């Protein structure tokens, strides 16, 4: 747990960069510090590991005042990743990751093993990458190593300053998704700085929205979007909050559990008889004998023979775990308004239609954050 209590930073030249900010990051949560440039978010983050000294107020980590630790002792407990990465160019990838473990006196073998584990975690093959130098890596690979290095000595806490900021948008989305997956396993307590509201909504359990050194709203991404506290927040969120909200809702929360499933082996007549006349215009998902998804059958077009002869749109699928904006993008690019929702075994668990998405959004808008 990281607690900030009336934290204030006044620089030597008299400017107040952070003004009376208080919030708490719960254990295992990722808290995003969000705001326009110059809002004090990075300064706030750097006060946590004392790269910037506090002027007033208190910061507690795990209930202990950070002033009780020596600088180096405090920082070794808190992983640190920055946009510019700052990999040490004269050290190999493994040596970079092993820096903090070495500072903490881990034996060589344990450090190596840890470096290999972390490289695996960030999807870089240890055998290929351990002994490479930073100059031999692409931008995305460097960012991965930067994240691995921050996790070097398995710290309970992480500070990340726009860690995915300096890479192309595609690699960036990959890294965000992978990091979210990693975070599901490791459950670190993270303070994550960004100026990108999309990233904030996607990554954050909580968002601390700052402006002019002040904390404007500290809330869940959902409430920031749909229950903004004032003009500044709604202005920062922008008019497309519905679109942004799509990132917050998972398909499994709004999909329809399938009422009718067709078997690939049955005949169209059997199926029609089974579903009744009111569903004759529907598209019905079809399962193979082993239960996996085979495609859709359109009862208006199909009239005779076996269902398996009329299979269509086998790729109109999405995982139940996808967020709505990804599902919507599959719909738009395939010109489909119905998707089959698959579980990890590729079995159909339900369908998601365009109107389901509309319904979910209007509910979110009306709920005004009561969810």
């Amino acid at each position: 747990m990281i607690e900030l209590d009336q934290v204030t930073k006044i620089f030597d030249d008299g400017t107040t960069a952070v003004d009376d900010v208080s919030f708490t990051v719960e254990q295992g949560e990722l808290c995003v510090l969000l705001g326009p440039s110059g809002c004090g978010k990075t300064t706030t983050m750097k006060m946590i590991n004392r790269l910037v000294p506090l002027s007033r107020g208190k910061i507690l980590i795990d209930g202990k005042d950070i002033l009780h630790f020596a600088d180096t002792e405090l920082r070794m407990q808190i992983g640190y990743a920055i946009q510019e990465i700052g990999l040490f160019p004269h050290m190999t990838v493994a040596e970079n990751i092993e820096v903090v473990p070495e500072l903490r006196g881990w034996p060589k073998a344990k450090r190596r093993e840890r470096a290999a584990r972390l490289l695996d975690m960030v999807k870089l093959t240890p055998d290929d990458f351990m002994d490479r130098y930073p100059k031999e890596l692409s931008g995305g690979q460097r960012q991965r190593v930067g994240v691995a290095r921050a996790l070097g000595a398995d710290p309970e806490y992480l500070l990340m300053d726009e860690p995915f900021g300096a890479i192309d948008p595609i690699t960036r989305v990959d890294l965000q998704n992978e990091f979210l997956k990693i975070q599901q396993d490791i459950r670190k307590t993270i303070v994550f700085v960004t100026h990108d509201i999309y990233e904030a909504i996607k990554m954050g359990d909580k968002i601390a929205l700052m402006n002019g050194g002040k904390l404007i709203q500290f809330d869940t991404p959902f409430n920031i979007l749909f229950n903004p506290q004032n003009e500044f927040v709604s202005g920062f969120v922008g008019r497309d909050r519905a679109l942004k909200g799509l990132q917050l809702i998972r398909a499994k929360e709004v999909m329809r559990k399938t009422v009718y499933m067709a078997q690939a082996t049955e005949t169209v007549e059997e199926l029609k008889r089974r579903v009744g006349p009111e569903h004759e215009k529907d598209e019905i998902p079809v399962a193979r004998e082993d239960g996996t998804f085979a495609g859709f059958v359109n009862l208006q077009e199909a009239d005779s023979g076996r269902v398996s002869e009329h299979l269509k749109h086998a790729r109109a699928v999405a995982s139940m775990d996808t967020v709505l904006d990804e599902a919507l993008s599959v719909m738009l690019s395939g010109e489909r308004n119905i998707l089959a929702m698959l579980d990890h075994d590729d079995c159909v668990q339900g369908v998601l239609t365009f109107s389901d998405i509309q319904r979910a959004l209007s509910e979110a808008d009306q709920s005004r954050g009561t969810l």
Partner: protein
Amino acid sequence: MKLKREAVLITFLVVLLGVTIWVTSLGKVGIYSTFTWEQIFYCSWSHLEMVVVAVLIGSVIGVPLGVLVTRPGLTRLAVPVIGGANIGQTIPSLAVIAIMAPILGFGFQSAIVALFIYGLLPIVRNSYTSIKNIDPAIIEAAKGMGMSRSQIARRIELPLARPVIMTGIRVSTVITVGTAELAVLVGGAGLGKITLTGVFARETLIILQGAAPTAAMAIILGFILEKVEDWMTPRGLKIER
């Protein structure tokens, strides 16, 4: 590309040594005898001695000086130190050397002090910039990870700065080989003795007998120090992409 450069250097060396051998073998130029091999070796040796001593002193003083003024708290001194070293170099080398004689008397020590002052700038300046030019993100990352100031200096800054510092020492050495020609004016020795004799005698060939080995020495020392520099450069910095 690299091979080509080495080929040029070797060609120069062969020409310079060839000239030396040829003039020496003449024995006599006009009414003057040329210098003997023994004299050439003696002068080369004392020349080398002055260069090595001056550059060693320059490095022992210049490297720590250049590095120290990058430390927080001492940055105020950076401008006067770098500026001072700069001024040392703007004074003509002949003047620096000439000033030393009345102060320290004629002899080896005046020559050394003058050469040291004159060769200091590249060492101080490169040592300073070698630290200053390190990407601030690298230092911030090191700090944020919990390295102490001395750990950052030893494990990060110095390894990254080493090649640039060595370049400064190399440049200083090559300059000093040239400047040491003038040491003879304040009672030092060196190949300047031969060159100057040629100047007074107005015999180009005798001038060459001193100048050619000096140039050869500059090339050889420069080459050796380049290898040292390469050897001291961390592997991760040599990779090109």
